[in-house]
């Protein structure tokens, strides 16, 4: 059973909602597993959907020109960590 922090869990729910991943239980998303191209099979348009939902919820923009983008989008853990650092809401 993957253990998520509270922030990771909240983000997992946001992702599942935003992408309408009916068959995915947010609790079951491994924080360290790849978000894109892995079991979840998310693509770059899903990434945009996530970015839009994140901007609405946390009042911050995920930027296309962020030098760490590859790491930020690598896993639930990395994305959550980045959001917690930069969020304004």
């Amino acid at each position, binding site marked *: 059973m993957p253990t998520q922090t509270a922030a990771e869990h909240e983000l997992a729910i946001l992702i599942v909602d935003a992408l*309408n991943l009916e068959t995915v239980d947010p609790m079951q998303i491994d924080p360290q597993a790849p978000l*894109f191209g892995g079991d979840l*099979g*998310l*693509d*770059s*348009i899903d*990434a*945009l*959907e996530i*970015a*839009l939902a994140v901007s609405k919820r946390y009042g911050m923009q*995920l*930027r*296309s*020109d962020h030098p760490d*983008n*590859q790491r930020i*989008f690598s896993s639930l853990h990395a994305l959550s960590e980045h959001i917690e650092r930069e969020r304004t809401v």
Partner: protein
Amino acid sequence: MSAHWQEQREGGSRASLGLLIHAALRCGRGFILFCLYPITLYYFLKRGAERRASRDYLTRLFGRPATVWQVLKHLHCFAVTMADRIYLLAHGERDFDIEVQGLDQLQQCIAQGRGVLLVGSHQGSFEVLRALSARCPEVQLRVLLDKQKTPAITELLESLAPEVGEAVIDVSRGGAAITLAVAEACRAGSMVALLADRGRAHETLRKVDFLQQPAPFPIGPWLLANTLQVPVVLCFGMYRGGRRYALSFELFAERVEIPRDGRDRAIDDVLRRYAQRLEHYARLEPYNWFNFYDFWQQDEAQPVAMVRANTVSEA
């Protein structure tokens, strides 16, 4: 087996392309257009795949076997528009007579300030659009392009107009950065142009009728339009012979809506409408179709699957 277009090699080495560009600017368009006759003949003789693709397309379009002359004319038309890219990048619209249709529709969309998605195809010349966009520098034009597809041509052409290269969103980088960049450009009220007729390898494709037979089209551009919720305007820059180009804009949708329920049907409706417009322009300017590969993927053994994969297309 039909080779995927992404495996087709770029015609000409970097050195010879550089020489061609240099010669084109030194000697002028008239001389280059003359040179394109033997060059076209050379390609006709050497490049079997392109020759067969041209004949196949023209035969479908005209409803009777295409002649050698028609295939040559087709390849020549492509060569002219490629050469004209040099002049359009170096001198803008100066040397050309560009007739524009539907500009008011585009301007109305721009005025909404939400950004505009300009969707084209590999028909005619998209360079005409870039040349024309210089008329209104206050609205930026970003172009989605795979710089790795034709690296030598891209690099050499960009050296003619560096600002054009900077406005490109390079699809070959892949990942979230691309879609985020498109969304940012739209938020800034810019135009983002992409070509939606060729599917890249591993991209999700769906088949709809084009010239009476199902052909695979990428669904990524339309999913992107659905997510962005910005106006979509179709854009075609057709070569009409001599120095004449016709640039057409037509509003495709104020918003593309692809609901979660009935997603496939909604996508197919959109693809069908898009394919019909391609067909319209193909009949208008038959020799402007520049997909020189088996567009219908007739030899494809397995059916086009609905897999979630890399879904952003390139221009």
